């Protein structure tokens, strides 16, 4: 792992068990609301052992990272730019899940040629969050977390996932959400993240501004970010002449844990392209 000072605060970066090597290409993994780096455990560890520098971050104000949690997608994108500068990374691939996909998309628009690939897992635009869920995330976070977990799940029989065989993804999601929420006593990062998703308006513009190829990895049964809700972005990307790939994963919003192999293969094959 690496702790990188970004904007005066330590940023935790899981490196997949491998030291940073400037000669290798770099991929940055960006988690979603109330998650941390560990949701990418399998995919990030695989890439680190297959020729890539991995920086699977805890966003500022989340778990092991200091700093102020991003209040907007744009702030998150600014942080990614600052992270690359602080790490001395000139060019990187960005992989984001859910809220992290919006941050990755906006960062790709701002950083243009510095981004080699963009992977949007479980994305949608606009990423509207119901007023009831936003309200619950602030005032009844346990109830809201339960709702999110139910909406994110697509199966009662997930395959061997990040913790290994015998993992119960639903409770793991609940436990992780509680820990992330507890990790920042100053700010409710659950509510802040949802508001940031809900208020982001720059998706289509971002698609026009970026220069890299884009992979959409969408869960066919995703009730949090339904595949239909990504169609506008896909059209915008194509209209802007982006090289667009789409992977339809047979799961819900927990793509990395409910379909770890399919998610990895989509990611690996896309990042393996020049």
């Amino acid at each position, binding site marked *: 792992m690496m702790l990188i000072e970004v904007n005066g605060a330590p940023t935790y970066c899981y490196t997949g068990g491998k030291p940073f090597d400037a000669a290798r290409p770099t991929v940055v993994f960006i988690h979603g609301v109330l998650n941390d780096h560990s949701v990418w455990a*399998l995919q990030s560890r695989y890439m680190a052992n297959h020729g890539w520098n991995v920086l699977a971050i805890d966003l500022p104000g989340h778990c092991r990272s200091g700093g102020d949690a991003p209040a907007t997608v744009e702030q998150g994108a600014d942080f990614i730019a600052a992270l690359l500068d602080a790490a001395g990374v000139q060019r990187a691939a960005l992989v984001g899940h859910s809220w992290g996909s919006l941050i990755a998309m906006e960062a790709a628009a701002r950083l243009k040629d510095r981004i080699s690939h963009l992977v949007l897992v479980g994305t949608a635009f606009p990423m509207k969050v119901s007023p009831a869920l936003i309200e619950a995330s602030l005032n009844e976070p346990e109830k809201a977390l*339960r709702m999110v977990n139910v909406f994110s799940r697509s199966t009662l029989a997930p395959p061997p996932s990040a913790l290994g065989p015998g993992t119960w993804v639903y409770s793991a999601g609940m436990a992780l959400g509680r820990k992330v929420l507890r990790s920042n006593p100053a700010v409710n990062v659950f509510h802040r993240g949802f508001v940031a998703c809900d208020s982001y308006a720059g998706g289509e513009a971002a698609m026009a501004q970026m220069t890299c190829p884009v992979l959409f990895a969408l869960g066919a049964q995703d009730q949090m970010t339904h595949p239909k809700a990504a169609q506008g972005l896909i059209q915008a990307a194509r209209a802007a002449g982006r090289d667009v790939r789409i992977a339809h994963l047979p799961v819900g919003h927990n793509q990395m844990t409910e379909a770890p192999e399919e998610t990895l293969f989509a990611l690996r094959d896309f990042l393996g392209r020049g």
Partner: protein
Amino acid sequence: MPGYSDPGFDTLALHAGASPDPATGARATPIHLTTSFVFESSDHAASLFNLERGGHVYSRISNPTNAVLEQRVAALEGGVGAIATASGQAALHLAIATLMGAGSHIVASTALYGGSQNLLHYTLSRFGIETTFVKPGDIDGWRAAIRPNTKLLFGETVGNPGLDVLDIPTVSSIAHAAGVPLLVDSTLTSPWLIRPFEHGADLVYHSATKFLSGHGTVIGGVLVDGGSFDWDGSGRFPELTQPYDGFHSMVFTEESTVGAFLLRARREGLRDFGACMSPHTAWLILQGIETLPLRMERHMRNTQKVVEFLAAQPFVARVGHPLLESHPSHALAQKLLPRGAGSVFSFDLKGNREQGKKFIETLKVFSHLANVGDCRSLVIHPASTTHFRMTDEALAGAGITQGTIRLSIGLEDADDLIDDLKRALKAAEKAGA
């Protein structure tokens, strides 16, 4: 199975972890009786060994049938995951061996299964792990017993055999204030009666031999992690928070924010100690769990009738079940165990040792054997069997006398159980005349 609400307990008991077999369409979980799993390539093999990809390598570490059982028990308990083991004792040992080594200390309830008491008092002390025993209701005692090298607090949901209910919310608060996890043996209650994680426990294990299996056919255990304990914040667990040279220099808490304990337990404990479960055993326990809710309901109904019968018998000195207001844990049981405090309990005859012997030997429906949680009703004399290594003082501490009889109430017609007990009580009373 997408849905807009949490699946209920009964649904999880049937479906969690299992889907129709993609290769054959088999609806029941297949038994994967194989030691090993073919790698697709050298890279696939390396990725599995290095935890870059999910999957199975060798059945001592994991197996698809066992994984269904592990997911199912984790789902029923509300845990992040589970590990199936060769027995309940293997699950207890795996928990302890994952968290500590020589020089460590445990605080445990006095009201434990005799085998657990043996492990802590005699066996682990030989390996440099000390245990201080505290009466489960002695709250100040729990707090006072914690030392700088304490790594674990440990008790049973309902202590064997006196059914002292462990005040999990209070004891877990004491544990957490000291940066120590609470491990709970929930064998006698099963998740149908209590889900210890919801009350503050950090780790739970079962002897799946008992109610989870439910049919007295197999030996097995399951260890479950609630995923909530703060291993980093505690500062007492370098086993989980520092690089482990024995497995890719992995820092387990960085690898998994909520599953560090299970990662090390599987990658070290199962790998090195090897107390794994047979896939056939896992399958049989799965069959049992599918009817756990139905069986537990009947266990509780029968128990209530038998307890009420025994409490009204003049030849019975004491019935030790929290259903009764006279039981010291009655109020706590009503709070933590509203569906009942289990179907395993003890009572004392007003008689001598010979009369106790006559009582047991007269029973026809109850089987005299060393097990509990069977679908059949069982009986045993703890002082001469399960707890025979304990001194009189230790026995008294656990609420056991020479005249104590332990029952495990099964699923038979309650009237037949009561008739059987009635005949045996009469014979025992006559034997003293």
